């Protein structure tokens, strides 16, 4: 039986962010969480494989305790079980350390896995690095930015757009793919699934010690990269406000910015003094 692992992440719901564009501060703890869209596509890809070729799906996530919500969502959609990696020591991990943590946990809870599926990127940090680094950490072949997956026996065939090429690739399992949002769509949670997710959900929660992780190699402590500063690129931008009658506003706009507008369109927009 095909053993699949889907790595998912809870991200802040971007449209609901308690977000102050003036200061660029973001109260992430107040933000409502959702399953990262590309992770849902990865889960959908796994569910389709399960529907045609059979298999079992383990959904795994690393995050704060509330990330359990998306494991329940994954189970409601058809995953067989959920694994939550949660520990304060894991917080602040960069992509390399995240992939290390996930790899050790997958080896522990899902030994002999066949196929690992990840979303190609997350909507919060947008690195697209965890998938490829997880493949590296597990020393298995991996293909990123996959649009379509087909499993036959122990071989996966994949299609993807890579730069200006449309590629068809193959690898033998075990292997890892990161899935784009192009072809795999989000399905609705079936009612029966909801029951499964809340009544008899198989969810285990593991901390660093339970996975057997070295505290020096995880979280902010183990990360090679350090964040110096976070800012909003639009904060502090000069914001000129024009008000009044439309005609006057447009005149002012040209008085002050005719060079700028003219430069962009390759025209001299200065008014001839004579024609005024």
């Amino acid at each position, binding site marked *: 039986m095909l053993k699949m692992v889907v790595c998912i992440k809870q991200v802040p719901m971007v449209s609901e962010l308690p977000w102050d564009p003036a200061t660029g501060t973001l109260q992430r703890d107040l933000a409502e969480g959702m399953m990262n869209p590309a992770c849902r596509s990865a889960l959908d890809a796994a569910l389709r494989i399960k529907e045609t070729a059979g298999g079992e799906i383990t959904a795994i996530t690393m995050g704060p305790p509330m990330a359990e919500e998306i494991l329940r969502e994954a189970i409601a959609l058809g995953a067989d079980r959920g694994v939550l990696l949660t520990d304060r020591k894991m917080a602040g991990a960069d992509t390399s350390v995240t*992939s290390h943590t996930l790899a050790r946990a997958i080896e522990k809870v899902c030994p002999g896995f066949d196929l690992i599926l990840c979303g190609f990127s997350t909507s919060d940090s947008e690195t697209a*690095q965890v998938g490829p680094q997880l493949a590296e950490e597990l020393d298995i072949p991996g293909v*990123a930015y996959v649009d379509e997956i087909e499993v036959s026996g122990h071989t996966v065939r994949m299609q993807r757009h890579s*730069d200006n090429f449309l590629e068809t690739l193959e690898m*033998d399992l075990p292997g890892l793919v990161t899935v784009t949002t192009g072809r795999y769509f989000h399905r609705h949670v079936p009612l029966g699934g909801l029951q499964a997710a809340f009544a008899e959900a198989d969810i285990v929660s593991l901390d660093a010690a339970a996975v057997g992780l070295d505290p020096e190699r995880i979280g902010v402590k183990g990360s*090679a990269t350090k964040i*110096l500063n976070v800012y909003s690129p639009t904060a502090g931008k000069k914001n*000129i406000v*024009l008000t009044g009658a439309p005609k006057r506003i447009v005149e002012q706009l040209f008085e002050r910015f005719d060079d700028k507008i003219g430069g962009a369109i390759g025209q001299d927009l200065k008014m001839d003094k004579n024609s005024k």
Partner: protein
Amino acid sequence: MIAKKRHIWVFGDYRNYFQNRVTLQLLSRAKDLAQKIDAEVCAVVFGHWTDEWVGDALSHNPTFCGVVGEYIAHGADKVYLTDHPRLATYSVETYTLLMERLVKREKPEIILIGATTFGREFAPRLAKRLGTGLTADCIGLDINGEGLLVQMAPSFGGNLVAEIVTPERRPQMATVRPGTFQEIPHDYVRTGKVVKVPLPKSLPTDRVRLVRSERCPQREQKLEDAKVVVCGGRGLGSKKKFAKLFELADLLGGEVGATRPVVYADWADHDALVGQAGKHVRPQILFSFGISGAIQHTAACNDAKFIIAVNKNPNAAMMKRADVAIVSDASQICTTLIQELKRRIR
């Protein structure tokens, strides 16, 4: 004995015009950074028939030809080159292995890789194998007072930028978003050093097999590449008023974009959607008419150099992030602007 100069490496992706441009942009920035830490700029090229490659039509350096010539002309002091039939198509696995060996031998201080699809899969695997840090899709690079590479990484659709360093591990690695830096003009009398690196004798077979690879026809990117974009939202009031934007865009030689509500209301085609699920624009000037500025939309506008927004509501998010915020009726301003432009364009 003179200590070996530090190295800044640029991965030399030359496959297509677009990827090659990214390489040239990185060489240009690497040159600036190299001055600050007194380093050499090196390009690393893996490929096949690299000497027959023709980049710029003007490329005719008497000493250096092909890819090597192109990169020396654009700022590389040294080019590491492995040219072999095995490298005729790019492979993440093979390239990671070759790069890992070369890095361990030469110990560069910094490695910059274009944030192409290939680069964004290749760089993480390489960084992992080297046990170092990597910052994704940077939109700025600098050297700080401690001589560290400061990597500006966007997140939340460009609404936040994090400044990231790799304090201890080496090399410091970043992938860089195409278009972030300006390439420097070529100089075909420039010289540099070429270091030919042979392919290792025991190169394992790729575990990922490329079954088929077709060059896709270059998609037309009118909206994405437009120098002027005129975007309209629900605040314009009606389909008829929205249609006026096309007249304005024509006068400005620009393209028309739309928000999701406008596309849903069928005032504009889905092709015109500017947003996280639509097109990302990066014009010199963005005109924004009657758009409140939902984050999915603004995320796709962050690369606009100059934003002129019109909205009755001065507190709309789009108005707050605009360079010029016009508090007025969007449709009226559009009409007045058209009249004024007609007077001024001769």
